[in-house]
């Protein structure tokens, strides 16, 4: 890892240990001495928040498993048992359920930060793609977790999503049977989803290690999008500067999180999931969790089954190609007046798709989804490549120090 590794433990025992396993030195160089750009703003605190949320999910999850039964006849009841009989069970479950939503709130902010400040551009392509992999794993984990309470939305959500694979020509049916372990979503499906829901967060943790490793090799981007040129002038040490700023943001985020848990714990869920799964009756409206809604809207915008599925997956996979789709030499949107406008239109289209994904698939809603879906793809496939050629960016500061000092001067003037 980059950053000065001049760490020498103070105690004799520490030095004895360090010469056998230099882990304290690794921690010191990664989280204490590590140089962070001095112009980072609060949008840079969400990586730390995400790490905490992952821990929250793993801890509450492991505890919930102590009381949960993965069987179609008992799953729903065991959840009710957790809510009513287990000491503090309601708190653990509400924390885990709302924690998933907060995890996605944080990841969307974190990703939009990257999109705004051009954090995906060279040399951070691998870092970015690892992020997209984390995001995909999060989606898979969230989906399988929602199946576990075995309510109506669990069952029908699982049915609709696993049926997406039946759109694949020739082998589609065989794949869905294989995923189900039967002829429909049933006990074998619940069992394997439980197994994978336990496994995937640990895989996420593994990819997060790679993600942070890649980050510490190439260094952080920053709001001005210029590389660190002079460590002494452009950066400050991680501790105390980033540690305290991250800590403050984390506490604010935790208060926000607590508000959901204690005041509106069921707002982000769906009432139908408090009805036990019934394979013979589909609820009137199947709505996925809010964080999948934009993609669900894209799925429904395409009037063909295979086409809808392809569009939906492409909407996520296109993120992997951003480093090569964006042709602009300038990283940060701060210096890209035209990109900035298209960026906010993109955010609006994604939010709009999210709204439409929760509406019934008929009439004007479908038309609106089509328009927004077209913009969603056009932003990546047309705007990004062309803008780099046609846009005239504002002059970029020579260094981070120049950017910071200039803005403090003009603020004083």
């Amino acid at each position, binding site marked *: 890892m980059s950053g000065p590794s001049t760490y020498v433990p103070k105690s004799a025992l520490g030095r004895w240990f360090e010469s056998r396993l230099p882990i304290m030195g690794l921690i010191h160089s990664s989280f204490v001495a590590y140089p962070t750009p001095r112009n980072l703003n609060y949008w840079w605190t969400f990586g730390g928040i995400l790490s905490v949320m992952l821990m929250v999910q793993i801890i509450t999850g492991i505890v919930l498993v102590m009381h949960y039964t993965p069987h179609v006849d008992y799953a729903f009841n065991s959840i009710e048992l957790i809510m009513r009989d287990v000491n503090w069970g309601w708190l653990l479950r509400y924390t885990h359920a709302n924690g998933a939503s907060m995890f996605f709130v944080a990841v969307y902010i974190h990703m939009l930060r990257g999109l705004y400040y051009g954090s995906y551009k060279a040399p951070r392509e691998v870092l970015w793609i690892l992020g997209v992999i984390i995001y995909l794993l999060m989606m898979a984990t969230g989906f399988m977790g929602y199946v576990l309470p075995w309510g109506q939305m669990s069952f029908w959500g699982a049915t609709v999503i696993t049926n997406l694979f039946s759109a694949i020509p020739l082998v589609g049916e065989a794949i869905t049977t*294989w995923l189900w372990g039967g002829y429909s979503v049933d006990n074998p499906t619940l069992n*394997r989803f439980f197994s994978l829901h336990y496994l995937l967060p640990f895989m996420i943790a593994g990819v997060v290690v790679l993600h942070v490793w890649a980050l510490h090799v190439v260094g952080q981007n920053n709001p001005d999008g210029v590389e660190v040129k002079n460590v002494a002038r452009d950066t400050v040490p991680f501790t105390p500067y980033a540690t305290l700023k991250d800590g403050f943001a984390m506490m604010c985020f935790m208060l926000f999180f607590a508000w959901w848990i204690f005041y509106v714990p069921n707002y982000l869920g769906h009432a139908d999931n408090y009805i036990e799964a019934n394979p013979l009756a589909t609820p*009137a409206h199947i709505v996925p969790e809010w964080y999948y809604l934009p993609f669900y809207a894209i799925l429904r915008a395409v009037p063909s089954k295979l086409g809808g599925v392809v569009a939906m997956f492409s909407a996520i996979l296109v993120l992997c190609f951003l480093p090569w789709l964006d042709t602009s030499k300038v990283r940060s949107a701060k210096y890209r007046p035209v990109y900035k406008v298209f960026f906010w239109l993109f955010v609006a289209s994604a939010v709009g798709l999210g709204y439409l994904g929760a509406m019934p698939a008929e009439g004007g809603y479908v038309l609106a989804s089509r328009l927004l879906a077209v913009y969603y793809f056009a932003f990546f496939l047309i705007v990004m490549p062309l803008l780099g050629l046609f846009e005239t960016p504002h002059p970029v500061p020579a260094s981070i120090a120049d950017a910071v000092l200039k803005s403090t001067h003009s603020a004083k003037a």
Partner: protein
Amino acid sequence: MLFIATGAVGAVAVGSVAWPLISQMNPDASTIAAGAPIEVDLSAIAEGAIVTVKWRGKPIFVRHRTPKEIKEAQDVQLAQLPDPQTDAQRVKKPEWLVVIGVCTHLGCIPLGHQGEYEGWFCPCHGSAYDTSGRIRKGPAPKNLEVPSYAFTSDTKLTIG
């Protein structure tokens, strides 16, 4: 030589370990056994009614069609159908329509006697089926699937 032999044995080992790991996810013997054929008593199904029975975890619709419904199903021009099939290809006796009650879009259960064609309507993404269970409108690509079945007597039907 030793390298090639090691590599070959290694490839066989990987293959023979991977296959059981993948194959274990397919339906197990008890699931397949529970999917054996079932019998339905037709005498209890009044004209115009749809009875739902569960087979292999899925609903099977057994519909006793009225003469009007049969006529509507037979009169359709094949050119109007996204998945062209005549009514005769889909039934063994015109008054009995037997289909798997799973929308061919993404697997929801369509509601009987509803939608523009009064066959079925799927509330999930708005697919409409006619009285022969054929897709007429909406995102579903195919007609409701017809399971294998046989009339064992005038009042008995075996599905599977």
